[in-house]
Each structure stands twice: as structure tokens, then as C-alpha cells.
């Protein structure tokens, strides 16, 4: 997919603009530059999960060759992005709030997502010799997707958030300076393109393996 190759333009632009173009945040200083990596990684984590879930649903309803493997590929990228989101977030939390982990609702959500990915990939690996592997793993992903809304309503009731509502808020408006917003959007585009590019490579490898087996 040629669109994925745009990552070669967007990713260097995102890295350079994060360090050179974006201004420091008022209180957080240079540590605020983590936002240009942390937020897009979190976005890709969720996109990977939703995409894997949608593919699984399509597979159960209509069938289709290699769809479970594609869902697994998406989950594979998703688990790396989720782990990096947790890592960048905890480093930033240490600088901003004084400790690596605070059980903030967003931190809890990302850990739950990491657990779901781990569970899904463990199940996928355990069913290696089962002819029904695709359907069982797809059913698991759909079940976890169905539980997600409960997390959205439950976790904010249990934990108080330390995250500022600059990016995700009820008004749906990004409340940061224009130049910072521009860099954030470039970075988000770069990471989404990276996801598309990696998925393309993994899916092409999948097709090659299929042809090789045939």
C-alpha cells in the first residue's frame, strides 16, 4: 500500500518538529515533548484493537481467508504500541506527578488493553493445532470489545483522573497552543501511517507464506 510509504516523510517530520518546532509547555518544560509520541502511540493502540475486532466480526459473519491472521497481526502491532504507551506515559508521570504509576483511569485503561492483547495472543498461540482457531480467537476479541464500554463507565467512577483534559474532553476540542497542536497532528498522522505500513508488510508476508505452503 503506497499510502503507508508516506511514513518516510511524516515520521522524520514528526520527530524533528517535536524537538525543534514545538514550544516547551509552561510548567512541564522539555518533558512535555513526550506528548508527541505518547498520545499517537495510545491512538494506534486503540486503532489496532478496534481494527482487529472489526476484522474478527467480519470473519465470523462472512468468513474470509487470512482474516484471523490479519487480526493477529494487528494485535501484534497493538501490543507493542500499548507497551510503549505505558512506558512513555510512566516516564512522563514520574516527571509531572512524581511517581511512575498512579492508577489514573487512563493508565488503568491502557493496562487493561495490554492485558487483553496478552490474553488474546496467549489464546491464539495455545490453539496452534486447532482447526477452529480463527473462530475461537475472533469470538474472544468480540467479547472483549463488548466489555470495553463498561470500562469507560466504570473506571472513572472508581478512580480520579490526574490527566489534563487538553486532548480528550467532553467538548471534543484540543485545548493546546496552535503550534503544539500542529506538531501533535503531524505526529499522530506519522504513527497511523506507520501502523498502516507495518500492517501492509505483515500482510504481504502472510500472503507469501500462504503461497509457499500451497
Amino acid at each position, binding site marked *: 500500500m503506497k499510502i503507508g510509504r508516506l511514513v518516510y516523510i511524516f515520521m522524520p517530520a514528526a520527530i524533528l518538529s517535536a524537538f525543534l518546532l514545538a514550544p516547551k509547555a509552561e510548567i512541564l518544560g522539555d518533558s512535555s515533548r513526550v506528548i508527541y509520541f505518547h498520545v499517537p502511540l495510545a491512538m494506534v493502540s486503540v486503532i489496532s484493537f478496534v481494527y482487529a475486532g472489526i476484522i474478527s466480526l467480519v470473519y465470523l459473519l462472512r468468513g474470509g481467508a487470512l482474516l484471523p491472521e490479519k487480526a493477529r497481526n494487528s494485535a501484534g502491532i497493538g501490543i507493542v504500541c500499548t507497551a510503549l504507551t505505558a512506558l512513555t506515559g510512566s516516564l512522563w508521570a514520574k516527571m509531572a506527578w512524581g511517581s511512575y504509576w498512579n492508577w489514573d483511569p487512563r493508565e488503568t485503561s491502557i493496562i487493561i488493553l495490554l492485558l487483553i492483547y496478552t490474553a488474546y495472543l496467549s489464546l491464539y498461540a495455545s490453539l496452534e493445532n486447532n482447526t477452529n482457531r480463527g473462530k475461537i480467537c475472533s469470538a474472544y476479541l468480540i*467479547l472483549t470489545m463488548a466489555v470495553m464500554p463498561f470500562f469507560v463507565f466504570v473506571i472513572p467512577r472508581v478512580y480520579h483522573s490526574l490527566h489534563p483534559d487538553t486532548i480528550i474532553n467532553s467538548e471534543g476540542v484540543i485545548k493546546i497552543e496552535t503550534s503544539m497542536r500542529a506538531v501533535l497532528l503531524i505526529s499522530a498522522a506519522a504513527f497511523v501511517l506507520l501502523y498502516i505500513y507495518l500492517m501492509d508488510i505483515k500482510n504481504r508476508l502472510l500472503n507469501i507464506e500462504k503461497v509457499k505452503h500451497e
Partner: protein
Amino acid sequence: MAEILRNLKKDIRVEFRNPSALGTAISFACIITLAVSIVSAGIPFPPMIQAILLWIILFFSAMNALLHIFTREEEEHTALFLRLKISAESIYISKLIFNAAFFFFIEAVVCPVFIFFAGSSVKNPLLFVSTVIGGGLAIVSASTILSAMAAKAGGKGTLFTVISFPLLLPALLVSISTTAVSIESQDFIEYNNVFFLFAFSAAIIAISLLLFKYIWIEE
């Protein structure tokens, strides 16, 4: 309906022919409860810690007890006959009812033992009981379909725990906070949380009913 009852009767008969699973599950739950109580050495825990410990015990008891219902069918090679004779939906419902009865029995043993040894005094017994039933139903509703998945993967207990935990987390969080309230006060506001637990269970059961045939029927 007749299929559900027939399968349920069969499961109960098989269970009582060799009640080792029930005995092991009850013993496991009691051992964890006693281990926690011995470690505390009679020092009363705050209500929130008591609630956390109770639900950890119940969660691991469920992980230990609820897997065998499908594993047994796979190990004894009776799954194929069930697939041929009874519809997937009927099998799911009968296994769900069996698991619910099995787990409520475990809860009925564990909760009094925990309250006795932990020295808890439950201030709002009605809220406590409804939370234990609601939370138990949530655990059973998710565990039933997940035990079918784990059985297909060779009936690995660790895998069952790994795939169950993320799904059960919302129900566990609500059950813990509501149980803590029921131990320390007579607050009636928390009944919303009990409704949440039943709504969660209903949603999981509805989705499981739709998905079960994809897990159960092999290509």
C-alpha cells in the same frame, strides 16, 4: 427447553458420580480463606482490604472450579456426541446454569467462612448478599464461554485465568467497592452498582449466546 434440562441433568449426574471437582473447589476456596486469615493473625483488616481479599478468593476459586465443565467433555471425548445431539445454544445455557449453581454453592461456603475468620461485621447484609450474587453471576457469565475456549486449547488452567481476568475486571472492581460499602455502612445508594453487575452479566450472556456456536462447532 427439554434439551437444556436433559443436558443439565446429565451434568449433575456426572458431577455427583465423581464429586471430586466440587470437593476440590470447596477445599481450595477454604484453604485460601484460611491462609489469608492465618496471615492476618486476628488483626481486623479495613473494609476495603476485606472486600479485596474476599473477591480475590472468589475469583481464584472460580478459575479453579469452572473450567472442568467443558474440559471434561473434551477429555472424555463426549463433546462430539453433544455436538450431534444438542444445539449449541442449549448446551451453552445448560452449562451456564450448571456453573451458576456450582459457583453459588462455593460462594455460600466461602463467604460465611471468610466473615467468620476475618472477623468482619457486615453492616448491610442485603447489599452484601446481592453483591455476592451479582458479582458471582458476572463471573459465571464470562467464565462459561471462556472455559469452552480454554477447553479447546487443551484445558489449561493458567490460560483460563489469563483470558478471564481482563473481561472480569469491570465486574470485580464494582463488586469490591460495593462489598466494602456493605461491610462498613448501611448506604443504599450503592444498589446502582448491583444493577450494573446484573446488566453486565446480561450483556455477556447475550453476546456469549450469539458467539458460542462459533467456538463449539468445529469445521
